[in-house]
């Protein structure tokens, strides 16, 4: 009650929320906006708009243990190089071959992975540029041997 009547508290609140939303749109969610665009043009056809994939054919990204998991390097590797292996993903096999994306910049990989890790029912952390760069050096070591 007291707070509602206090105009300077209101002013401060408004100011803070404007600052916060500018920061949010510019800094935090811009990579989600970019990530969504990349997803729609390069991933949606197989993984579908709802991230549910296609049974037995294209793996789901929504509610996938790997997608929301800790192994960022593996996700970076898959987005770059595609995936065409007989591996069980959450107990199921998918027969299609995923397209490689050799043209993606590290920032684009961070953006699209941030989008898929925070979309639909996924609530994992976003992926930063630094994480992609770290993953690249890790993956290089792995693929060299």
């Amino acid at each position, binding site marked *: 009650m007291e707070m509602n009547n206090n105009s300077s508290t209101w002013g401060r609140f408004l100011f803070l929320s404007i600052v916060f939303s500018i920061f949010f749109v510019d800094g935090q969610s811009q990579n989600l906006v970019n990530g969504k665009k990349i997803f729609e043009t390069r991933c949606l*056809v197989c993984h*579908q*708009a709802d991230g*549910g*994939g296609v*049974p037995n054919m294209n793996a789901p990204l929504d509610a996938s243990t790997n997608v929301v998991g800790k192994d960022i390097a593996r996700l970076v590797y898959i987005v770059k190089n595609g995936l065409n292996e007989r591996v069980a993903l959450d107990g199921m096999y998918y*027969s299609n071959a*995923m*397209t490689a994306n050799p043209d993606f910049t590290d920032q684009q990989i961070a953006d699209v992975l941030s989008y898929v890790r925070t979309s639909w029912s996924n609530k994992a952390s976003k992926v930063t540029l630094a994480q992609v760069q770290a993953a690249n050096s890790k993956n290089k070591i792995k693929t060299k041997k």
Partner: protein
Amino acid sequence: MKKGLQILCLILAAFSIKAIAQENAGLKLPEGFKASLYANNIGSARHIAVTKAGVVFAKLNYPNKEGNAIIRLEDVNNDGVADKVNGWAKFGGTGIYVKGNSLYASSNEAIFKYELNNKDEVVNPQTPLTIVTGLINRRQHESKSITFDQQNNIYVNIGAYSNACQTSDRTPGSQGMMPCPILDSAGGIWKFDGNKQNQTYKDGKRYATGLRNVVGLDWNNQTNQLYVAQHGRDQLNSFYPNLYTDAQNAELPAETFYAINEGDNAGWPYVYYDPAQHKKIVSPEYGGDGQKEGSKDFKEPAVAFPAHMAPMGVLFYTGNQFPEKYKNGAFISFHGSWNRAPLPQEGFFVAFVPFKDGKATGEWEIFANGFAGVENGAKVTNTAKAKARPCGLAQGPDGSIYVSDDTKGAIFKISYSK
């Protein structure tokens, strides 16, 4: 008071809509046809086969919860719902066929033969004979669908493990290989002897080639000819955005149905069929631009269906139960598309292809719809949301037909009465 009545009416209306939806197991059928949910949740039921006594066998893509990949179903009390169900076999796969007192089933690499007793029970569930082995399985298009001619020869599809035979599969800018090396051992139909054991490529014969992936195939006993339905290539817009828009990709290429003669070449990967131009167009991986016509030597389809709907089963109807127009025509089940995205998906139905004097008229119509479980007129936008996806087709001894679904494992039985 008035409001209460309105709400009551709404609730009642909702219930009656639900009741109507459940009639015919949720399917929409032509006048006079009825459907029952013959079985449900049996596992990913691919192709199905029915014996002369009406016992149904279903081949599962993977072993189900009980660890079985072949299921035997029987409707003992004859109410349209299977009441005696059991299973066996560890190998996932698609093909299943009853021939006399033999039951053939395929994994993604091999074909096995079981023996049936006079009650249509399998006598050797653990020790089938191996008829064919060593067929190529590189994940993509791995199903080995089978059918038979009247001389007990097996026709098996060996799908191409590729989209368009690019040097690097599904990679933007990668050219098509010339000649496509995949065609030596896949991308066609092979013929084997149904009685001989342990055959492999060298014992069989490449019967037809240039077929990217055939899942549905059947022998037309009226004309003594093989018919196959091909899954056309994907992703023209993803790899060639300058030549094809999303909307064009959603309609290209046609899913094609062919009357096959020995030695036929349907043209994959060099050409695809454009249903609007009625032409075989050179694939962009082989220098095509969406207009340039390919060789006339490639096989002309008997029927062209909308793109990406994924034909899964073909069944020539020889029964006497359905109206006369269905006799010797072909049913084709469509799994439903994914590659039409971002546009809405299509398919998820069973089509009927009328035949006249032993030839497809070129026309087709939707026979059974509603498998996906979306509200009237609505479209499926995300393929995984479809409730059921039609796959196998088989005809029962009374002339009813069965349709399997490989998502939850339903089998629908469709019958007709005047």
